[in-house]
């Protein structure tokens, strides 16, 4: 694979990106946060390696970034950049081999209900439970709320994703888009510190995807949750994200951390320019890699 020299030369980037995030991000949101200097999620020099049957794979190399309260933080990169692996590490399903991930200053050691994942797969809903039971399930099992209160809160969030009519339907009777909406409602009903979304709209058809993106943004306007959103789609990143982390593939390293265009301007010229800029960065990387491969 890539030589040690290349890895070392690029390792300067993540640190720089991290510092930039704090300095630019904190100025705008200082009022909302109790301690503006402490990021909600602090990812520092994270290298993740995992073993397959034959290889030891380095998925990410010294990735660092900060997510602040209310951020729509998008991790963008081509397939193989370790973005999903990174999200799983934030979720606590994987331990980084190097570096650390802190949520509100606490080191992340295992999965927990303060970080709820929304997956790409439609089978993330429990098929033996109705929509309402699915949304209420985490509230009850984690002891967040008692049966009655859990039902009520679940119903509120089901209403928010416009599925009240289907509250008592089983997941297999729903369309893909509806299933993802239930999953989002289930995650948000837990009111976690941070929502982790792993390409939640990637398996949907193009029209549904656009509608779901709009709905997610409308929900954000209402609740102002913090989300860490993984995608490989540049337009989706520009539309969803307030800040975008660009990862290069094999292994994933921070290429850039940039601000997206303001909310609602995803069709503007600036957005198009940003899209081209991102595209060039990803494209440049491919040319760089080609002779090695």
């Amino acid at each position: 694979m890539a030589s040690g020299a290349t890895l070392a030369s690029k390792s300067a980037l993540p640190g720089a990106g991290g510092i930039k995030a704090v300095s630019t991000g904190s100025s705008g949101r200082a009022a909302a946060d109790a301690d503006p200097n402490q990021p909600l999620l602090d990812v520092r020099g994270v290298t993740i390696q995992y073993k397959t049957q034959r290889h030891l794979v380095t998925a990410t190399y010294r990735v660092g970034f900060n997510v602040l309260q209310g951020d729509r933080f998008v991790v963008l990169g081509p397939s193989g950049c370790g973005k999903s692996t990174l999200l799983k590490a934030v979720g606590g399903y994987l331990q980084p081999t190097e570096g650390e991930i802190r949520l509100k200053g606490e080191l992340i050691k295992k999965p927990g209900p303060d970080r709820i994942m929304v997956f790409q797969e439609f089978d993330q809903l429990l098929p033996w439970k109705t929509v309402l039971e699915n949304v209420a399930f985490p509230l009850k099992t984690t002891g967040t709320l008692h049966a009655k209160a859990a039902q009520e809160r679940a119903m509120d969030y089901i209403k928010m994703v416009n599925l009240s009519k289907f509250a008592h339907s089983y997941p297999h009777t729903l369309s893909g888009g509806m299933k993802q909406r239930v999953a989002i409602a289930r995650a948000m009903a837990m009111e976690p510190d941070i929502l982790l979304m792993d390409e939640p709209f990637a398996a949907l058809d193009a029209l549904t995807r656009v509608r779901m993106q709009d709905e997610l943004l409308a929900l954000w306007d209402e609740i102002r949750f913090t989300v860490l959103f993984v995608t490989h789609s540049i337009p989706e990143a520009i539309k969803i994200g307030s800040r975008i982390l660009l990862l290069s593939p094999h292994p994933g390293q921070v290429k850039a951390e940039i601000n997206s265009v303001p909310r609602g301007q995803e069709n503007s010229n600036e957005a198009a320019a940003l899209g081209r800029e991102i595209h060039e960065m990803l494209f440049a990387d491919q040319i760089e890699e080609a002779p090695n491969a």
Partner: protein
Amino acid sequence: MLEAMQRANIYSETLGPEQFGIIQKPLTLPEKIYNQSWLRKIAILVVLAAAWEIYGRWLDNPLLVPPFSEAMRALVEDVSNGTIPSRALSSIQVLLIGFTTGTLLAGLLTVFAISTRIGTDFLETMTAMFNPLPAIALLPLALIWFGLGAGSLVFVLVHSVMWAVALNTLAGFRSVSMTVRMVGRNYNLNGLRFVGKILIPAAFPSILAGLKIGWAFAWRTLIAAELIFGVSSGQGGLGWYIFESKNQLNIPEVFAGLLTIILIGLAVENVVFRFVETRTVQRWGMQS
């Protein structure tokens, strides 16, 4: 040449509905009746019963093949005088004890198997060893260990149920998708709560299939075991009823016993398990 072929648009006049004699006509009654599969199956049974009746009468040897009417007479008589129901009840009692114990042990074994690697190896080795061994082959040993009585029957029943259920449950647990597992762990579920709230419902189609196989094994094993010794605490089961009737040359009663076994087997498989299936895996859209 090809581009030279210019085809004109074609428009045609369609006839109005009043021009047709038949557009939609209900099927005739005989056609409707013939479309019902259960009616066709009943017809087959009637034909078979008639053939049996004719052959029995023609043979005129009730010790070999009594006619169908004789067997039915024996069945009705022994059902109404309470012999068959009490025999069936004693069979079913032993069966339920064996089936429940076997299922519980299978559950324990599977939980052990998914929590440790050595447990998996243990279960795999044991199932590989005991699955090909018909439970009834253990009866002689069971008789030595537990004596004549319900103990021996329960032992072979447990053996016939446990491995099938454990094997299917383990396969079911393993096929639970990574996503569902991660969802469960996201909610801080682990250990037995994870098994109970995530794995068992998610693997329910496989578990149910295992229970059906286990039931079928157990029912056949029980009847076979009863045929060999049968009497437990003075009251034999259906197998023993058949064996006894044969010894007393009451051949119609033998057939009545066989019919009862078929009926009970059908009832459990098509009513009890069917009911559970429609309430669970079918409603959840998980039927595999």
